[in-house]
């Protein structure tokens, strides 16, 4: 079996990306859901690199028979992924904004925001 350079590079990039994603999850900078999505995405890339014939099955399953269709469907998939990712980032930013508003309000009322609570939020 001849191995192309793409079949070496793509799985390596996938492994690095997966290690990076799960490292972020371990440090509570990514949710479990995000890490699982990244795993699905990069595992698919690696799998297709190893077994290109999978694309033949995809063609049969999806009806995508020419390259233009394939590009369009891929672009829609990537855009969908980006929108979902941005929603999650937006949610995280709003959470931070609320925490800031709360801390300011409690401090102004003379009720200090507990440090322990911040720690719990990082863990949660």
């Amino acid at each position, binding site marked *: 079996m001849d191995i192309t350079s793409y079949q070496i590079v793509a799985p390596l990039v996938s492994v690095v990306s997966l290690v990076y994603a799960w490292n972020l999850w371990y440090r509570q900078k990514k949710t479990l859901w995000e890490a699982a999505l990244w795993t699905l995405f990069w595992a698919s890339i690696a799998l297709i690199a190893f077994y290109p014939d999978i694309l033949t099955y995809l063609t049969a399953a999806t009806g995508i028979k020419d390259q233009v269709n394939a590009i369009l469907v891929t672009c829609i998939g990537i855009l969908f992924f980006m929108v979902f990712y941005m929603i999650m980032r937006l949610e995280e930013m709003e959470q931070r904004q609320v925490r800031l508003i709360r801390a300011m309000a409690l401090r102004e009322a003379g009720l200090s925001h*507990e440090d322990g609570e911040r720690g719990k939020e990082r863990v949660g």
Partner: protein
Amino acid sequence: MKIVAVIPAYNEASRVGAVVHAARQYVDRVVVVDDGSIDATGVAAAAAGALVVRHPENAGAGAATMTGIEAARALGADIIVTIDADEQHDPRDIPALLQPVREGRADVVFANRFWSTSLGRSRNRIPAIRRLFNTIGNVVTFLAAGLWVRDSQCGFKVFGPKALSGVHLQTRGFEFCTEVIREARRHHWRIAEVPVKVVYSAYTLAKGQSFAIGVKTALQILLRSFLR
């Protein structure tokens, strides 16, 4: 046991004073979270004897409730009662809501505005559209939390010592009611439901949740289910 009432309020200057005044008879301290109101809500609440915590920006009912919970913890509360600022709830129901916690039967108590008599009639005059919204809210909440509560979207609640120390709400809007139920299931808190009186006026109906807010709330609940 120190009991603190938490009242999240947004533009309720004409009503919040009366709620604070009535609630003070049943609790040790009243905390009003002025959620970035543009009227004199904070001034009215303070004049009625509440400790006012003011959000510099409007952050939502859920965020304001969690701020009130944080404030109550800082004040050394053992039990908290959350109650709406628009006079929809009757503070005279507070003792009945506290009872299951005082007796050690429950960690969190939910008010039930939709209770019925033995004849099947509700004791409260509630518009049909409100009943429909509540039923939809109950179903969505059950799907998201796995726990059936008869009035899942009511803001009138009691948190006992165990629930008070463990509750950590992350939602900002009205979906916090569903989050409380999910927290109850996750932490295995014992729950109780107590029938309460509710007063719907033109004012409360105008200020209450619309269909659009209900849809937004449902979507937020589903989104948070994914992000958990």
